[in-house]
């Protein structure tokens, strides 16, 4: 029987790998996700099958009921969140799910610890248990703080106090010490509780000093942690039940997720021109930092939508640059309608998506896909930048820092070196903003004063509706 279960785990792992591979194209991605979920179903069924055969006595009845209730309740809660969530709230949802994943791994490790025979276990087992609890628990508490920051329950400002990093270092040291206590067999239960409590605290302390604007990095990192926690739990399972390959399945899946999270973290850091250490320990990236800026006078040209409509009428190739401000204004549908009309006039329309345009990796793409923008039109930074050279109009909507040319030229700028969308290379740049306030980074944008730049002020949604009707009237 055991062999069939192990084969089922192997098939499940293959399903996950193949499913992730199919995510390499939007055409195959949905089926890929179905294959992954089939793999998970198979793994669960195989495990429940094992439950029925290996356990003797009366406890089976209770376990079945418990398992049934947990599975049903979990499915209902998960499905509820999945159906109800708004696409703009996706970062919060992923944060919560990360947290549950981390907690589940940690709890399994706790349970395995309590099951250990009194005679003790190997050094390997204790280290695996400790790591699994630490990573899983800090993922849990850290994710909930991240959720709170994104949702506005906790201040988006970095929360800092003196000695914060020293405190974190002390916590980490005590965690190492407690792990050593486990291995040496000293005060097992005390060490166990200390590990749980302190890793929960560490998760909180690691996330509170990080500003709201840096949350995309944190979410990606926590995503990676939830995978690593699962992999560590896999080691625990292997150590405790060497004949079952359940642990192998956890190690494989956890590693895949861990790798995925790390890659996304790297991409986000690169998009913001920050090192990971700078994001974690820098305590910057607050939502509204003070005006700062160079104080340089910028002369802007403000146009009405009628005047802007004439420029669009004469244009052949238009690139739309959406920022998160667009999603806040709920203007995605307005953009799509404008783009469709321009295309019906025989013009080319593309969208330029900066890696940090949304609140998590790929967020802006999802928000535009929701508004029925075809995915072929969504171009990433490397694809779109050469296109600006022969572009007639670049329409910047609710984006600021990601189009600031200071990132290329001004070494004194805080965003110097950040990869940007080269909209200033377009013949005309039309920028829509509500007001002249500086962007997230609190820096004034010299682009607004360029000769080829035109400002159209107003709420993005209203402006787009007006612009579309003005273009139709021409």
């Amino acid at each position, binding site marked *: 029987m055991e062999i069939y279960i192990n084969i089922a785990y192997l098939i499940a792992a293959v399903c*996950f*790998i193949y499913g*992730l*591979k199919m*995510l*390499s194209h*939007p055409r195959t*991605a*949905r089926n890929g*996700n179905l294959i*992954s979920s089939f793999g*998970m179903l198979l793994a*669960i069924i195989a*495990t429940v099958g094992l439950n029925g055969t*290996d356990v003797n006595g009366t406890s089976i009845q*209770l376990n079945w009921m418990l*398992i049934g209730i*947990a*599975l049903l309740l*979990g*499915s209902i*809660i998960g*499905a509820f969140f*999945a159906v109800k969530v708004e696409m703009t709230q996706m970062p919060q949802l*992923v944060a919560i*799910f990360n947290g*549950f*994943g981390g907690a*589940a791994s940690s709890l*399994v490790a706790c349970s*395995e610890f*309590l*099951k250990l025979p009194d005679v003790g276990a190997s050094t*390997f087992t204790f280290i695996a248990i400790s790591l699994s609890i630490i990573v899983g628990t800090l993922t849990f508490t850290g994710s909930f703080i991240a959720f709170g920051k994104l949702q506005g329950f906790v201040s988006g400002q970095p929360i800092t106090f003196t000695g914060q990093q020293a405190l974190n270092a002390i916590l980490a040291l005590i965690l190492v010490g407690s792990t050593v206590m486990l291995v040496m067999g000293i005060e097992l239960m005390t060490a166990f509780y200390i590990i749980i409590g302190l890793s929960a605290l560490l998760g909180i302390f690691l996330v509170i000093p990080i500003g709201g604007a840096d949350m995309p990095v944190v979410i990606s990192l926590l*995503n990676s942690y939830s*995978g690593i926690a*699962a*992999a560590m*739990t896999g080691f625990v*399972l*292997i150590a405790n*039940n060497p004949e079952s390959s359940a*642990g192998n*399945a*956890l190690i494989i*899946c956890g*590693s*895949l*997720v861990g790798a*995925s*999270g790390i*890659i996304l973290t790297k*991409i986000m850091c690169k998009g913001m021109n920050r090192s990971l250490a700078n994001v974690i320990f820098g305590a910057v990236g607050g939502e509204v930092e003070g005006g700062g800026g160079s104080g340089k006078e910028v002369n802007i040209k403000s146009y009405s939508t009628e005047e802007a409509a004439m420029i669009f009428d004469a244009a052949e190739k238009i690139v739309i640059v959406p920022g998160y401000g667009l999603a806040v204004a709920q203007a995605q549908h307005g953009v799509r309608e404008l783009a469709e009309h321009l295309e019906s006039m025989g013009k080319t329309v593309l969208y330029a998506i900066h890696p940090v345009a*949304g609140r*998590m990796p*790929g967020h802006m793409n*999802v928000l535009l896909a929701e508004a*029925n923008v075809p*995915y*072929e039109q969504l171009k990433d930074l490397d694809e779109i930048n050469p296109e600006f050279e022969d572009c007639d109009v670049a329409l910047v909507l609710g984006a600021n820092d990601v189009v600031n040319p200071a990132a290329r030229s001004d070494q004194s700028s805080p965003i110097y070196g950040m990869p940007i969308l080269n909209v200033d290379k377009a013949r005309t740049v039309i920028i829509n903003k509500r007001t002249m306030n500086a962007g997230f980074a609190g820096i004034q944008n010299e682009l607004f004063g360029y000769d080829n730049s035109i400002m159209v002020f107003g709420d993005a949604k209203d402006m787009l509706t007006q612009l579309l009707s003005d273009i139709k009237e021409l």
Partner: protein
Amino acid sequence: MDITVITIFVLAIFVGFEIITKVPPTLHTPLMSGSNAISGIAIIGALLSTLVEGDIATWLGFVSVLFAMINVVGGFMVTDRMLKMFKKKK
């Protein structure tokens, strides 16, 4: 503890890096929610930990099955909901 598990761990990380780097930025959000659902594989560990009779470990198992199931079902469903929205040009 033999080297086999470490081998699996290291090789799986390499496989992960190879396939994930091929995912285009357009699909990074579904990648995240989908891979998150996969990390819910901890559910099989959770199911196994309910095996112990009537003590606290069983209840820990119950809670971990619950959490992992939220992660699995919610993760796969929301990923499907997003991927459904990615359409080709008419």
